[in-house]
């Protein structure tokens, strides 16, 4: 079937029940989205589907016909950083950074919804993303530092 990922069309030949994360990582070599739990509980695999932050590990391909998928690889033009990525680098927010892709994608969606989010809005919107290194407060302040005007 055909998938629209980062404005490119990919043809994949796997069962429609296969989950998007496996297809991205192992069939299309887009390994930015990470496996963390396989049950949509940690957010490491987050991608945008029609702009909505989506857990790719529990998203079957069959649900993605005619949808627009954006992964971390397509969030910003090559060589540039999305404002969220820039803010996370500036804040030196991450430790092991395995959660980073999912955090970036969720935060990018958050800013679409709330251009100037409050701390509560950030915490509540990002609550599905786990960081075991405990960088949460740094991530919150990095997001708050972003000027979206």
């Amino acid at each position, binding site marked *: 079937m055909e998938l629209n990922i980062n404005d490119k069309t990919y043809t994949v030949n796997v069962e429609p029940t296969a989950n998007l994360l*496996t297809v991205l990582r192992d069939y299309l070599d887009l390994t930015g*989205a990470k496996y963390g*739990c396989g*049950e949509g509980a940690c957010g490491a695999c987050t991608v945008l589907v029609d702009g909505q932050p989506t857990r790719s590990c529990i998203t079957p391909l069959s649900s993605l016909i005619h949808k627009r998928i954006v992964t971390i690889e397509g969030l910003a033009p090559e060589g540039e950083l999305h404002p969220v990525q820039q803010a996370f680098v500036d804040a030196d927010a991450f430790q092991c*950074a395995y959660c980073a892709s999912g955090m*970036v994608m969720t935060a990018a969606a958050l800013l679409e919804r709330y251009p100037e989010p409050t701390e509560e809005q950030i915490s*509540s919107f990002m609550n599905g993303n786990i960081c075991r290194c405990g960088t*949460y407060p740094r991530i*919150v302040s990095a997001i708050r530092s972003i000027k979206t005007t």
Partner: protein
Amino acid sequence: MPVRNLSAYRQRHSIHQNDLKAMRTSEEPFAAEQYELQGPPLHRFSINRRQFFRYLGGGIAITFVAGHALSDDGADVAGANDNSIHAWIHVGENNNVTVYTGKVEVGQNIRTSLAQIVAEELTVPFESIEMVMGDTALTPYDMGTFGSRSIPYMGSQLRKAAASARELMKKMAAKKLDVDVAQLKVSEGKIHNTKDGKPLLFSDIVRGEKLIQPIDESAATTPPGQWKVCGTSIPKVNAAHFVTGKHEYVSDMKLPDMMYGKVLRPPAFGATLKSADLSRAQALPGVVAVHDAQFVGVCAPDPLTAERALTLVRAQWEEKPQPSRDLIFDYLLKHAKAPRGNDGGGDIAGGLARAKATTDKTFYVDYIAHAPLEPRAAVARWEGDKVTVWTGTQRPFGVQDEVASAFRIPKENVRVIMPDTGSGYGGKHTGDAALEAARLAREAQRPVKIVWTREEEFTWAYFRPAGVIQVKAGADASGKLTAWEFHNYNSGGSAIQTQYDVDQRRIQFHPVDSPLRQGSYRGLAGTANIFARESAMDDLANDLGIDPLEFRMTNLSNERLKNVLKACAEAYGWSGRSRAKGRGHGIGCGIEKGGYVATIAEVLVNPDDGQVTVKRAVAAFECGAIVNPVHLENQILGCVVQGLGGALFEWIDFKNGRIVNPMFSRYRVPRFTDMPELEIVMVDRKDLPSAGAGEAPIYGIAPAIRNAIADAGGERLYSLPLLRKP
């Protein structure tokens, strides 16, 4: 080929006497710990000068090795098979500096801090330092990245090695310029002739050289007061790679012709494989299946086929009864072995008789999981009888031993490479996934990748030990401790000795063969021992009607800890804290591995339903001179947040040899909305050597919250996690 020891579920005893001995002799005296270790290798680093410079290009190299191990002219690394080499620094012909260390990066940002140290001593730009880490073929032996050792041990060695390189180049320049070495000064990566003349680049000096020298013990290092690179917040190396998804973790790797592996897990701990029928799995196109002793695994050219193949394996297992969570604490007490060492021999009864307040309580601490967000992963590739394994481990050289031993091949035939990995927290000391990938790759004659599922990680890795702690203690009317008796069953001996002054003391660790596979954890048993100690201290203070901070100060003579307590209390506003009903404030503090931590937490307890909210916490920490303030703050923050999970709600439930909650939807970890207001106070002591920071800051938060709950009029709690609903 039969493989020895290739059983993913075998119970390993976590304490090896030899390892503890090795640790003691090589570094420092250590309390009985729960590290999973193997002895250091006997012979491995066999690089010779020719190989070394063929790989690196010309230049000079400084190695941390005892001087007598080098031949007189430094022509060859004659002692290089010996374990005394801990790191190399190479200054090359292009002015580039390469540092070789067996330490690994798991998010503590040691790659950054160690490079800062070398840049400082060589006066070169931070960016010019390349760190080669955790590769058994390129870096000298290192026991592992744990125990908060990277900064105090590796950091100080690298500082000395870099200073030695600088002094050596000065001497070489003096010879070249025919001037006295005292006339030369090194700054900005150049050697300046103070009398006059153009500065020399390092590359001008090392060009054409192939010189290996040992560390020069007389080379002066830069005192912390004069640091320019250290003490500053240099950001994480390659940060942009991490936020763009470009960094390649082991689980992201893909080699040409690589297959995807899956391992058949037993239905329960201790189950024995009776038979396995692989025929249906093998009938799938491209599938290779292996049954070797207790190991059954499959691999396929794509992951979906591998998953399917695994479901087609028919296996019969024989289970045997296993202790369950509901009886675990009785089990630990019943199966305790002879306690370790001298308990101190204090007169507890006499001390208690002089006390005005006493406590006699038993604490219970559950098993918890590290749950690193990147589960165990490995890629293995054989070339003839040599294997290369990429895996996320805190002990690449330990994994090299494991693989060599499992396949009965010489260690030299095993190369383990550790790319920067998705965290560990003490949970990635073993090479389980590496062994599995290597076994499948051997059979398939193609590279194989294994990535554990979250459920596998929760079930077949290892846990922070559960423990039972009995505390009997007393204090007199003036608030002085009169007796302290403390017995820990199974958690471990880390931080078991009390920091408080008390003459009559008996303190012992009672080891147990844990029914669950257990091992190292951030801060080890200190998370349990300090929780119990600080809780008992608070009970005594409150029963005496003495302010808990004052009570601690009365019994403390350690100035560093007292300073940290003061700094924490000041930042928190302890003396002016509001004493409303349902609002409580609690303290926890401790010392371990050169780190001094004090934490004060504020909690709200809803009088109607007992609901606990952690409103605020202040953590103060001191570990000597600060190398990188932001990264230190991140480590403290990370410890407090991880500690919050163990304090409030993390626990492993198990029944009949099965983990009941092996997933994030059933094993609760801290999330954004669990964050209290957090403030971190870093006490910089430029007069003291830098110590590690990845562990000790975890200690304060659990007792601080527990004591705050009691202060708010809630219960005095005696178990971790505090909010576990049975």
